[in-house]
């Protein structure tokens, strides 16, 4: 897939016009494909609740507007704003820990005047890779040991604060988004292998920081049948939904697990199980393919970006998006613990739609603000 291939593919329309409004047609096209498929599943998963689908459409439109708006902003401004943003959001995270509001033992939001609520950790998913990419933007790559330590320090602080809220899913994604920058910056393979060897120790440390309900999730993941009516219920039911879907599925709106409410959180975190039940492995394959299309375009943009900052940021954002998808499908299908990560752009609601669309805005900006060569 070369740039000229895309150009030719776009010959039916005015490529220059798109360049002018800073929209990457291929990225936008694959995103719209994914989004419309997601709405289709949501209709079934919500129990044919049109109002719910409409609210999701509204949220997606806002997301698209933000995406296009951010695409207008040249990457150099983003780079310059990165450290300021990082400090600002980190301060807000401290604010959340001190004055945050929330529910069910988690404290994730800052209350704004007018009854609005704001979740700084969500923004951190974007600001973290911006910060690390900025850090490397005027340093020679690959990073040396001192730089690695500095970057890890930058990552750990906000991640710990988010984990303390507690919001393990977001903390994980924020950490991953920073680490991806480090990886893309050329982190030595020996460090990577060393980290893999140290993973068990890290796991133990993480365990110490976990809340009871988080530990419960892990234990349930390891043996869901131990508590089939309690915390194991979700994972047993989602595996049942997926498995019973078979190769071709039970048909649209025909999934008994989803339609009869055996599947919990069917319109949010577990929505992939609805697709798997009603459209089978084939439907899942198509969805995964749609994701891969978005990711492929994201990685293409990263590889062809103008400078290190843009490359590192675009690559990290794209990979984080993949991690989103992988963790979600992995947890619903029972190969990862349930950590409360939505299926990006498909799961109903949440601020995540806005931030994810914002990341694609950044990617489009990177792609469309290149100086002509």
């Amino acid at each position: 897939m070369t740039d000229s291939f895309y150009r030719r593919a776009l010959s039916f329309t005015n490529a220059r016009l798109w360049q002018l409004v800073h929209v990457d047609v291929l990225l936008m096209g694959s995103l719209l494909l994914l989004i419309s498929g997601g709405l289709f599943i949501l209709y079934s998963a919500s129990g044919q609740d049109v109002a719910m689908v409409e609210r999701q459409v509204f949220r997606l439109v806002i997301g698209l507007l933000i995406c296009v708006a951010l695409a207008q902003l040249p990457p150099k401004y983003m780079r310059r704003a990165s450290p300021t943003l990082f400090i600002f959001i980190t301060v807000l995270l401290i604010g959340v820990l001190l004055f945050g509001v929330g529910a069910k033992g988690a404290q994730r939001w800052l209350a704004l005047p007018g009854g609005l609520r704001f979740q700084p950790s969500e923004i951190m998913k974007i600001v973290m890779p911006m910060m690390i990419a900025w850090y490397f933007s005027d340093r020679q790559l690959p990073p040396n040991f001192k730089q690695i330590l500095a970057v890890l320090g930058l990552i750990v602080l906000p991640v710990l604060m988010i984990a303390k809220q507690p919001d393990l899913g977001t903390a994980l994604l924020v950490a991953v988004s920073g680490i991806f920058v480090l990886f893309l910056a050329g982190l030595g393979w020996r460090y990577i292998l060393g980290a893999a060897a140290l993973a068990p120790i890290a796991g133990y440390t993480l365990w110490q920081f976990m809340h009871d309900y988080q530990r419960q999730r892990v234990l349930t993941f390891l043996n869901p049948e131990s508590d089939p009516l309690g915390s194991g219920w979700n994972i047993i039911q989602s595996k049942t939904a997926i498995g019973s879907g078979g190769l071709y599925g039970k048909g649209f709106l025909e999934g008994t697990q989803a339609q009869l409410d055996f599947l919990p959180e069917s319109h949010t975190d577990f929505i992939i199980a609805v697709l798997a039940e009603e459209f089978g492995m084939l439907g899942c394959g198509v969805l995964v393919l749609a994701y891969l299309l978005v990711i492929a375009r994201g990685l293409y943009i990263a590889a062809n970006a103008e400078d290190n900052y843009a490359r590192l940021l675009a690559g990290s954002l794209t990979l984080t998006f993949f991690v989103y998808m992988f963790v979600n499908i992995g947890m619903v299908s029972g190969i990862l613990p349930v950590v409360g990560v939505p299926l990006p752009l498909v799961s109903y609601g949440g601020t995540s739609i806005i931030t994810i669309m914002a990341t694609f805005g950044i990617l489009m900006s990177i792609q469309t603000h290149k100086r002509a060569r």
Partner: protein
Amino acid sequence: MTRRHQNFRNYRQEQRLTQQRVLAAAVFVLLMAVVLMARLFYLQVIEHELYQTKANDNRVMLVTEPPPRGLIYDRNGLVLADNRPIHSLTVIPERVESFPKLKQMLSGIIDISDSEWEDFDSRRKEYRRPYQSLTLKSQLTDEEWAKVSVDLYKLDGVQVEAQLTRYYPYGEAFAHAIGYVGRITSKDLETVDKLAYQGALFIGKTGVEGFYEKTLFGEAGLSKVEVNARGRIMSELERQNPTPGKDLHLYLDARLQQYAYDLLGDYTGSVVAIDPTTGGILALVSKPGYDPNLFVRGISVDDYAALRQSKKLPLFNRALRGGYPPASTIKPFMGLAGLEYGFSSWTERYFAKGYYQINPDGRRYRDWKRTGHGWIDLERSIIESVDTYYYQLANKMGITPIHNFLTRFGFGQTTLLDLSGESHGLLPSNEWKKAKYKEPWYPGDSVNVGIGQGFMVATPLQIASATSALASKGHYFYPRMTRLVGDQPAEFPDGLGDEHDIVLKDQRNWGRMIDAMRKVVTDPHGTARRLQGTDYEIAGKTGTGQVFSLQEDQEYDADSLEKRLHDHALFIGFAPARNPKISVFAIFENGGSSSKPADLTKALFDAYLHDDYPARYDYLKGDKND
């Protein structure tokens, strides 16, 4: 910020490095995508069948609908066991957030006892299908129902369910005949189809309710339904309607039953009345009874303990299981046995002293009349109940003819009545004594059996049934509680017909013996002469059964004995003597004199034959006479 490397930076090399890393990431992404697809392949293709079964098990539930239980009617169409709608407070535990909170909220609305909570909690923790409701408090009063209904919206998981429960309108007098239904135990479930009883609240335990459980229960409806995760039924996939249980129409006459129960007064005892022309049980009384309604939804521990610990043994069915010496009521049968085997005749005379000895100088077997009866014959031995006559007769016969003859009247075996739990009493024999005591049968043993004492034990039902056979001159009908099952005559077990004839060598002996029993009432010296003055003829025989053995010369002195050691008072009788429509056995435990059961029997005859009961029994009249 220092930029010391700036001049030496190789941007191309750095670009290549990052591009390589993007490529590596792309490979990583692809690999992980393959892992996901492999996982989906495993679940959706390899394990597909397993999960398909699981999904179906989730979705499809078998729901049994308990059929309405058959009603039990007396002979006049009076409902003795009814179905009544009740409202119960039920809880779906899965929908309750916190039980302490629920407990606290409910306590402000209605009274739920600690034992009800304990019972609920233990059932909640047993294995069961999730989202099925459990009864917390059954049989809400109208007031409780209203109070709970108002606050129901606040109480998650709590609901009021309407159910049919069993109700016995006439209480304790009928308890031993009708029996009761009770909460289904795991032991009960071993004998029935578990699925059929899934939605049932109770099962027949004793009496007619127990014996006819299958018939009364009917067939449970079964539907396959699709349920959602909260147990709500979304659609019905298949349905088989319940078949209601069949009604039972008994021979029992509710007024006679209640009257007999009341006539026993404060005594414990039993009355069994049989229609000799059909074998139908007109009354089957065991006193004291108990309130069968206590058992329907599970009896409380306190109530049960009170019944169990009562010295009067209210739970003991005396009519079916009480073992009594038949005493002098055995004499007509003993007399017939003597005639049958040629050991006595109507004309042979016997000098009755105040006692009988097998050998001169041997033990003296005393007559109830110290002075003796003088010269008597068989007929007079019945009229005056001469003990010595039967001592000598039994001694002459020996136990084997006695055993064989009495067996023909049903002694020593169950009567095959359609009630479970009947005991077979004891009709002794040579073999029995050898097996039991490893001793031979002594002549003295026969002597005691001659007046219905000693080893011999019979149940009220056996004596009543034998009396009925005598009343019908051997045209014997098996005793029966149930006349109609649905609209079909009740069937007999084991291919038996409903009757069998006892044929004597000389069939005229029936009439002569009945005559003698008639004279028990009409003769100036008859032991039941107090029953004279009826416009129909009564044939009867008195009896007093020893509760404990008197020493040879000891005299029975009622005043100095505790009541519980008083003799049992017995009476058998039937009327009209020449064309009997009712035969009765009555026993007053420790009643002393047989006048009590004799009076009771006469009162029953008067009421039954004239259909003239005291007005206070009008509520038991029923709406149909047949």
